[in-house]
């Protein structure tokens, strides 16, 4: 939640979010070890590596020491896993095999990283010719049939594991290249990279300091997967009999065991088991690292359905029972009435974090109510609870909301009554969002996005809806409605897109419009036009409007009444002239005092000295 970060803006500095002291990256390691899968994976891989490293000490026999008199023997005190067809000790060969197999997997990943990572960094950071060229090379490498190339190399250079793995590393390096390049491209134009450039950092230090850190984690995850693939490919080649028979490796053992599968199936089992364990360990490790890197918040979300299951069921029946309950006598004439509303988010520790607390107000027909506050004041959360668009994990912890004489949130309800609200939403209550561009689907024309809801909500024919959409577009001041109707969202400007959304909001003749910072993303000159439009429509259609904003100029321009919110609470309420000219509460006074209009230029606004001021 941004709320938690932003509310800290209003508290004094020493109490701000987070604790003092060093925040180290060991967080990731710690989280990795909290995950049972992570512990298992690390355990397996660590054991395998230790066995491989100390193979010389642990193995009772040389890898190729053959006791001809004791072939295909069962496990006993000397050969704890038995012997193979040549009388070699399976346990010893398994240990030496681990060394060869793991080393070759490392070599393969190393070669792939060595080629793919630098090339990806350079291509992603500089783009241009190098990128074009390397994309060609990558496409060629990826279109080569890998197995055939490996077979050819084997034919040309003999049965060396190392050469095969180097070749495979080169073949697989495009996956690192692409991963790195895409990741780098996504941060190349970040402002902090620009800031580093302005600071005079060389490209090399920018890449190592600012860019490499972004690539590191995906590379580690990728490597876990690639190492697994390398083991599988190498063993596959050896299983086909293309390995070096003079060296013990799991693949060679597998091939051996397969020849004697009817006589001694265990010979097949042990190398297969070792491989499955190692590859599985690598995959699990990759998953565990990815989980550890994900925000802790996501883990919380996963826990939430459990809470929901236990509490939602009784709440729902209660909601259904109460939704028929009549609203308080004498308040039916209000178009919208919010009474003692509280909205909270259950936290992992069982407490509920309130973002809206004891908020009450009403809106009548033909009236514009402004909700003013800074970020984190809960103004948007209030608007969303009226619309019933709160996130799934949000709870109505107190209060009620009634619309036109009926409860949408009855007293005691835990969530918004969606059944009741979905009939109202779009038809009688509509919404004008803050970001016009992100609220239009780029894949559909503007006309389609206007017509579809009208056909659905009003039940009119498509032709009729089209005619209506044209009229609406010209109503909201679009000079050439036909052209806008046929355009895709990216073909119109931000101001135009906002006009389209306003047209959409009034298309089904609503009684109430919720406008959430409708002009914040627009230029000042465009803002003035959009405000004119909202005012004109509001008067003509006699609708009620809830206008959420942080701009007192917008409030003065449109609103009849104002409520001021801070930290989820309602601070002050009254007619617009009273609030703007004669604010009673210090917070409102501070906010109004921060306005620049009418201030002597070049003077301090809030403090004689900014030191110690929290912002």
């Amino acid at each position, binding site marked *: 939640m941004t709320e938690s970060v932003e509310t800290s803006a209003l508290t004094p500095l020493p109490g701000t979010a987070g604790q003092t002291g060093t925040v180290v990256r060991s967080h990731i390691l710690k989280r990795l070890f909290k995950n049972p899968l992570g512990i298992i994976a690390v355990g397996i891989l660590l054991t395998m590596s230790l066995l491989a490293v100390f193979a010389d000490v642990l193995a009772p026999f040389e890898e190729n020491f053959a006791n001809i008199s004791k072939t295909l023997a069962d496990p006993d005190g000397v050969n704890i896993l038995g012997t193979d067809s040549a009388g070699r000790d399976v346990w010893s060969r398994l240990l030496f095999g681990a060394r060869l197999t793991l080393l070759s997997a490392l070599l393969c990943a190393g070669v792939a990283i060595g080629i793919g990572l630098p090339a990806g960094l350079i291509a992603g950071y500089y783009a241009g010719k190098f990128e074009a060229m390397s994309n060609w090379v990558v496409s060629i490498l990826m279109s080569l049939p890998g197995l055939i190339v490996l077979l050819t190399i084997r034919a040309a250079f003999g049965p060396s594991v190392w050469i095969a793995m180097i070749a495979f590393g080169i073949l697989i390096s495009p996956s690192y290249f692409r991963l790195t390049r895409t990741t780098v491209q996504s941060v190349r134009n970040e*402002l902090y990279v*620009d*800031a580093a450039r302005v*600071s005079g950092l060389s490209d090399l230090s920018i890449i190592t300091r600012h860019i490499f850190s972004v690539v590191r984690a995906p590379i580690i995850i990728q490597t876990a997967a690639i190492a697994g693939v390398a083991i599988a490919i190498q063993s596959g080649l050896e299983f086909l009999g293309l390995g070096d028979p003079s060296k013990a490796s799991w693949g060679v053992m597998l091939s051996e065991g397969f020849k004697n599968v009817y006589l001694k199936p265990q010979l097949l089992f042990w190398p297969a088991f070792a491989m499955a364990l190692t590859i599985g360990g690598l995959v699990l490790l990759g998953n565990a690292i990815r989980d550890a890197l994900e925000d802790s918040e996501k883990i919380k979300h996963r826990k939430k359905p459990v809470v929901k299951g236990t509490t939602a069921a009784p709440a729902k029946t209660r909601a259904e029972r109460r939704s028929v309950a009549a609203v308080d006598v004498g308040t039916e004439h209000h178009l919208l009435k919010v009474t003692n509303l509280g909205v909270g988010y259950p936290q992992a520790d069982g407490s509920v974090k309130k973002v809206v607390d004891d908020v009450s107000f009403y809106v009548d027909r033909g009236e514009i109510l402004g909700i003013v506050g800074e970020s984190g004041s809960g103004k948007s959360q209030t608007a969303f609870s009226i619309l019933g668009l709160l996130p799934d994990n949000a709870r109505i912890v107190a209060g009620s909301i009634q619309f036109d004489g009926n409860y949408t949130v009855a007293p005691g309800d835990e969530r918004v009554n969606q059944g009741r609200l979905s009939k109202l939403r779009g038809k009688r209550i509509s919404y004008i969002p803050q970001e016009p561009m992100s609220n239009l689907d780029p894949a559909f024309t503007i006309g389609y996005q206007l017509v579809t809801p009208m056909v659905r909500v009003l039940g009119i024919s498509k032709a009729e809806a089209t005619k209506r959409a044209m009229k609406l577009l010209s109503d909201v001041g679009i000079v050439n409605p036909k052209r806008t109707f046929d355009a895709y969202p990216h073909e119109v400007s931000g101001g135009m897109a906002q006009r389209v959304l306003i047209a959409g909001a009034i298309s089904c003749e609503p009684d109430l419009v919720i406008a959430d910072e409708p002009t914040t993303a627009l230029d000042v000159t465009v803002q003035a036009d959009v405000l004119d439009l909202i005012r004109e429509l509001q008067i003509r259609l006699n609708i009620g409007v809830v206008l959420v904003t942080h701009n007192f100029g917008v409030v003065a*321009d449109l609103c009849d009444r104002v409520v001021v919110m801070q930290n989820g609470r309602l601070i002050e309420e009254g007619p617009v002239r009273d609030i703007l000219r004669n604010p009673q509460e210090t917070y409102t006074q501070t906010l109004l005092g921060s306005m620049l*209009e009418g201030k002597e230029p*070049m003077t301090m606004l809030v403090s004689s000295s900014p030191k110690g*001021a929290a912002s």
Partner: protein
Amino acid sequence: MTASAGPVSGSAASGGGAQIRAELLRVDNLVVEYPGKGFRAKPFRALTAINISIGQGETLGLVGESGSGKTTLGRAVLGLAPVTGGKIIFEGNDISRASRKQRRVLSRDLQVVFQDPYTSLNPALEIGDILAEPLGVQGKSPAEAKKRVRELLDQVGLPSDAIHRLPREFSGGQRQRVAIARALALSPKLIVCDEPVSALDLSTQARVLDLFLQIQKDTGVSYLFVSHDLDVVRHISHRVAVMYQGEIVEQGPADFVTSTPGHPYTQRLLLASPVPDPDRQEKRRADRHRLLEVQRMQNEQAGVLA
């Protein structure tokens, strides 16, 4: 307009009006073009024949709507946008085509504060490392750098334990203070401020503007202050330049441009910004409608004549 500088405080203004200020930055006939998309496409001209100058200890406010090129001008001065034609002269040297090496020397005198305090700080680095970065580039020892970082945190009003914290632990306003501290690290002569308060809350914006003013008072630094908000620009600038579609349509002393605008766009801009009083806003709204009507008729007449 002799009172162009207004009631400026601090050392830089002690000499008198803006006319006496030694020139720090001059931009002559600057043109910036971006290559067009596709084969033999016409390049996109972001800036056309820009002329501005900034004196020592002076703030030039650059105002315009989105897409007007005001950010591009700031980036061109910083060497982050390609200069197609014209000159950028900083302390007598042409820096429009400065090499990486020259830029490194320049970074001592020329710094930046970006708009978005959320993406302008590397989320993986501690505040102390972020602030020490420009110091390290200039060859300061770690001990010296650490001392300077403490001074900087104090200067921008952040607690000294912020050194070991990550950007995400701070609110928007505090992050912007960190970004300002980074810009101040090398005691630059000019800071390009690219919409530094647009992403902030109203009361936070006021405090950060105070900080900018205080720093100018204390250090005599110059600002190229880019903003879309005329009120912000008027508050902080000695002189104001108005940009419209890649050109500067009007520039002059701040109080003059913002009280008696000459260019039609500036007039529209001035009346479009709402005032926090219903009755005065109603009047301004009426003025604006009248102005739009007059300008529309003028355009029509011009169209008839042409």
